[in-house]
């Protein structure tokens, strides 16, 4: 009497898939040889990574002087990249945790790749606090470990100490959340594996998962708990990253609007990066049926929301500066808009304010090429937002005698390219060797959850 319920809602997975075809589609990608497009993407990413590694090792050997910094502008590309990559990381956890708590079923086909993107982005981000140090070989002093110096611990009042804990917790929790979610799929891959090595590797990786429902029952509880923990973590990590600026005394940084402004900016640039990646991945890996236009559309709607919040934040900053009557704050914002770095400021405002407005039109929302291009513009805008916040507030703050211009050095640009290289290399490897889509969860949202396919 297995009747299937015809839902009035549009099916989440097109092309009347059934359980078997889903497994074949997703695991099939891992068996086939990668397409030419994949190899091209991989080599570009790898060469960028190599350039980055050369630049970073040269900088660590020679000194921070190889960057374009000076005594007034102590941070520029390094912390811009850090905040940029941490920001991108947050979309993944948002999709997998917060949308899970909101029971948004459409997240199932994109949450695995989004979480992977999170971990790779946070790894890129985690690299910068270490290499931006003058003496990275003493970086272990950032941890409060018992030592023979009295013991001399750590300054817990410093936002950088908070950053260390925040980024590490975020990396650990989202990695655990991603891996736990993947264990059932690894088991599926293990059972389908043909070659002995794959069987051994995935056998080891899948922790002996046998699909027992008693395990599933506890697994679902833990998955819910982890989602519950990861959700506030998203908001708290980027709040703490924004504290790096909010708790300082520099005009243009010292505003209480920073935490919500940064979190919205993070989700905004995170979703843009997810869009950029998935539009390529769905084309390259032929997953159009799983990552449907509906998914892309939903994500663009989130971008409209968060884009709006970011624009509101720009306006609030200007209003607060005017309203506060504090001459230094007013100067910083006038200097941002009309000073020497005005070009960066207008790129930022242009990208972050105008691009989301295009998504109001359904035609644009569903046109993959347009969405791809706009998502890139958003990330350019968001990179410049962090650059403008950091450099313009530093290069002209209180005493005019220390006003200075900043120009990036080649090593700094190479490090930025290197960080993109690292991100895309890891993502390419993930696409190639891991199940891109969470098989278990997609199966659980099929219209007809059985073997014989949709129309019985």
């Amino acid at each position, binding site marked *: 009497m297995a009747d299937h319920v015809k839902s009035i809602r549009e099916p989440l997975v097109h092309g009347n898939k059934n359980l078997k075809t889903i497994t074949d589609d997703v695991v099939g990608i891992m068996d086939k040889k990668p397409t030419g497009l994949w190899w091209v993407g991989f080599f570009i990413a790898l060469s960028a990574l190599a350039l980055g590694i050369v630049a970073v090792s040269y900088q660590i050997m*020679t*000194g*921070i*002087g*190889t960057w*374009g*910094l*000076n*005594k*007034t502008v*102590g*941070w520029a590309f390094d912390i811009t990249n850090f905040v940029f990559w941490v920001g991108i990381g947050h979309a993944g956890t948002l999709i997998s945790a917060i949308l899970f708590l909101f029971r948004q079923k459409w997240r199932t086909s994109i949450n695995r790749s989004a979480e992977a993107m999170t971990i790779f982005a946070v790894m890129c981000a985690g690299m910068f*606090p270490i290499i*931006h*140090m*003058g*003496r*990275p*070989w*003493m*970086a*272990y*002093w*950032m941890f409060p470990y018992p030592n023979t110096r009295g013991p*001399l611990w*750590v*300054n817990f009042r*410093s*936002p*950088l*100490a908070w950053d*260390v804990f925040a980024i590490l917790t975020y990396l650990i929790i989202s990695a655990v959340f991603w891996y736990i979610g993947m264990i059932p799929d690894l088991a599926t891959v293990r059972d389908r594996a043909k070659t002995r090595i794959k069987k051994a590797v995935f056998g080891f990786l899948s922790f002996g998962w046998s699909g027992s429902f008693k395990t599933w029952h506890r697994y679902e509880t833990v998955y819910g708990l982890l989602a519950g923990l990861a959700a506030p973590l998203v908001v708290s990590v980027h709040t703490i990253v924004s504290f*790096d600026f909010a*708790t*300082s*005394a*520099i005009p243009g940084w010292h505003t209480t609007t920073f935490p919500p402004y940064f979190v919205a900016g993070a989700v905004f640039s995170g979703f843009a990066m997810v869009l950029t990646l998935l539009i390529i991945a769905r084309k390259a890996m032929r997953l159009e049926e799983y990552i449907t236009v509906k998914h892309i559309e939903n994500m663009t709607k989130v971008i409209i929301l968060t884009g709006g919040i970011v624009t509101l934040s720009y306006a609030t900053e200007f209003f607060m500066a005017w309203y506060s*009557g*504090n*001459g*230094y704050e*007013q*100067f910083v914002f*006038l*200097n941002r*808009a*009309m*000073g020497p770095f005005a070009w960066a400021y207008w790129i930022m405002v242009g990208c972050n304010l105008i691009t989301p407005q295009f998504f109001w039109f359904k035609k644009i929302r569903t046109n993959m090429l347009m969405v791809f291009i706009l998502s890139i513009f958003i990330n350019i805008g968001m990179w410049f937002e962090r650059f403008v916040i950091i450099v313009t507030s*530093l290069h002209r*703050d*209180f*005493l*005019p*005698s*220390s*006003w*200075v211009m900043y120009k990036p*050095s*080649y*090593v700094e640009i190479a490090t930025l390219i290197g960080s993109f290289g690292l991100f895309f290399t890891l993502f390419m490897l993930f696409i190639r060797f891991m199940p891109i889509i969470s098989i278990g969860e997609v199966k659980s949202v099929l219209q007809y959850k059985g073997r014989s396919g949709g129309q019985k």
Partner: protein
Amino acid sequence: MHKEKKYRMNQMTEATTDSVVGPADLETTTTEWNRRDFLKTAGFSLAAFMTACSKTPVNKAIPFLIQPEEVIPGKAYWYASTSHACGSGCGVLVKNRDSRPIKLEGNPDHPASQGGLCPICQASVIELYDSKRIYNPQVFRKGSTWAALDSFVLKNLNKTRKQGKQIVLLTETITSPSIKFYIKKFLKKYSNASHVEYDPISYSAILDAHEVNYGTRFLPQYDFEKADMILSLDADFLGTWLSPTQFTKDYRKNRNLDSKHISKHIHVESRLSITGAKADKRIVKSPAEILQLVKDIESALQKNGEHGIATNIAKELKHYKGKSLVISGINDIGIQILVNRINKFLGNIGKTVLHKNPSFQKSGSDNAVSQLLTDMKLGKVGALLISDVNPVYDLPEGESFGELMKTISTTLLFTTKKNETAELCNVICPLPHYLESWSDDEFISGLLSMTQPTIRGLGDTRTFRKSLGDWIGYEDDERILIRNYWKKIYSTRKKGNLSFNQWWDNLVHDGFVNIKEKSLSIGRYKQGSVPKSNFNNGMTLIAYPSLQMLDGRHAENPWLQELPDPISKLTWDNAANLSPKKAKELGLNQGDVVKISSNGNSVEMPVYIQDGQSDKVVAVSLGYGRKGTERFKNLGPDWIQKKVTLDEGELVGERVNHLLERNDNTLTFSGISVNITKTGKTADLALTQTYNTLKNPENTAPPSMKVRPFIQETTFGEYKKDPSSGAHHGHQVVTLWKDDHPYEKHHWGMAIDLGACTGCSACVISCQVENNVPVVGKDEVFRRRDMAWMRIDRYYSGDGEDVDVAFQPMMCQHCDNSPCEPVCPVLATVHSSEGLNQQVYNRCVGTRFCANNCPYKVRRFNWFDYAHNDELENMVLNPDITVRSRGVMEKCSMCIQRIQEAKIEAKAKGIPLADGDIKLACQQSCPADAITFGDLNDKESDISKLVEDPRHYHVLEELNARPTVGYLTMVRNREEEKGGNHHG
């Protein structure tokens, strides 16, 4: 009456020439694997962590062989000596650590320095350890011994006498009575010899004018303390003119705000100098206009004719008869004669212009030099002995002088360093640095200053006096030559009735002694006629001695090359300063390279737009383009984007001396007509400050704050009415926090009087010497990564010619609620229980958040490992302070090493620390006593009184960082009703 012995006296009797410590054999014994590399790799590789008993680096401890008494390793002791860095003869105390001098401080009792020193003197200590000095005599550019050199010289001198040619001794002003005596003996021995004196920065016009007016050629002494009214015509007496440290000390004595009136200082100049910056009233005039002004003032004093500004200056001068002082730094006889007449008319002679005990600091004569040039052209000169001057560089006719030298058979140069003249001489006698030689000097008549060696001579050098002594036939050594001379004339010159030996020991111990003035026959005053001066009215050139380079003798000094010019903030270069209007007129902007040419000679240099400069003048600083500065070619860290600032064969800056003119026997440094042409090339100027005013830029100025309130300024009149005038607004300190940190023992504080600070930057160099601050090179300064812990911010207000200048020395403010401490993640910067912000170099990992968060931007970061591989130059490092490696933050530590040393000393003696026991390096060296340091918990200390002073304020008080460094409002003696506080 033997005083309590404070300073050590050099016991060495004879200059030990046998075992000489050359630079080569100064190897140190660190093993190849020193501790810092070990820790660095340990941090990097965990392997060291695993090895149970890693090979410990073996360090040696090597004691003395024979223990010299009173020398305890690690304990500093002091010598009293005299500085020969710039020829104004300040008395110095030389701090000696482990038998090497590392720091100079002014001798508080010495009348010339009165405790202060100028930046040039502070920086001259590194030139002692210059591995590129000449360390042994050279004949025909081959190293040889003194004996061979002496025989060669004597042989040639006799040969020249036989040929009937002249022997010329060309020297700078000789201030040592013993050298004058031995020169007289030398001239007696060689009848055809003559002695010519000249000063690279010539003052001969003053001496010649006094010859016209008083019959004898002398330079009077100027007493700024008694001068209630000072009219200075382009004489930078607070910066580079004659004896700036002494003048600054005296100038400040007469500006005590508590007395009923303070001195009034009117300054007339064509370029902006630091004296002009401090003047109460500053008038900008080109040299020709200054000549006209002096004429008008002189005639206005005689009450004939109405001459506008000249008449009210004359009126004021008459008001201060007998208590005023008129001086001029322009090397033109006409102007100097007019100045003499005005001083005579006002009755200042004997009051502020002292003729009875004149100054012997400058007695060079341009006339004698032009005479020498004609003789050399006629080939009359057979032997040329040059001592410690560089004529090929200094004189306008430098090239031709060089050619003529080639025609002379024996040319001999006494010098410490290779320079332009040394290349053309066939005999070079290396001179010792003044810190390793004996000398007696009478810079001011009646004051004998002693110079004694503070280290055993590096290299095989010999002084000019010893060489003369050997050639005349005296066999004994340096010290005996001086001692015997003074023993002979002791009876005629002694004051008081000490035995000679006792007198001599006091002299060597104290560094100076007052002796009877030599009577100078000064004739009756004659009006004298004013010769026609040839300043022309078009575009003229002014070549001025810059505060760091003076006449270029210290061009090889890295500290001075990197010291930013107090006005233009330019380092490692000299530039053609043009006024903004003139530059716009010629279509030039900053950094364009222009060609300045005048009658055939030309020079190419970048333009610097200088506010407050006359439109008819282009000002260029002397002392640059000196051979020997090519050593700085690859100074500074090496990395891919490093811009090599000196190409092959290029020198630091451009030589300008060949543009000077010599008309009717005086060397004119200003008023030379030039024309300026664009060359289309551009050059980077390494400036340490590129935004020069407290006004916000036009397009981004917020309505609520047009001008930033960091400088408070008022006039003396308003100050008398309301002492807190000029203050911006009271700031009431509000805090939510419980005060967990009361300062029970000490609470160190500092106050800087903006009215006193002249911007001379002696504090910047003194701080650099004391705290081992590295030199980074032109490219790094251009990238704004200079390392000096102190910077002097110079803010203009007003624009064009009528500009007010304010100097604000800015260093770490040691805030109580410091923004930098809470943001450091590894506790590398924390607050001490005595109110100081501590920067722990070995704990810092270099995140640089503290530097970003500091509102005053006073923190410096070690971007690279700055090279310390010159073994000899490392001798100047202060052993009490760690030399920072790369990746570490550093900043003003308020000379914590001096505070600790004084506390340890007081605790050892069991007496409490008194106010004034601790003097910071900057405070000690300041000629204007602008910096006060002390314990805020001690209510009787100077600093506590200053904190209560209504003039006292903090910069950025509204941030509630609660800095402990306070500033005092600048008070100018000026009547303008708007209080002159453009600074708003």
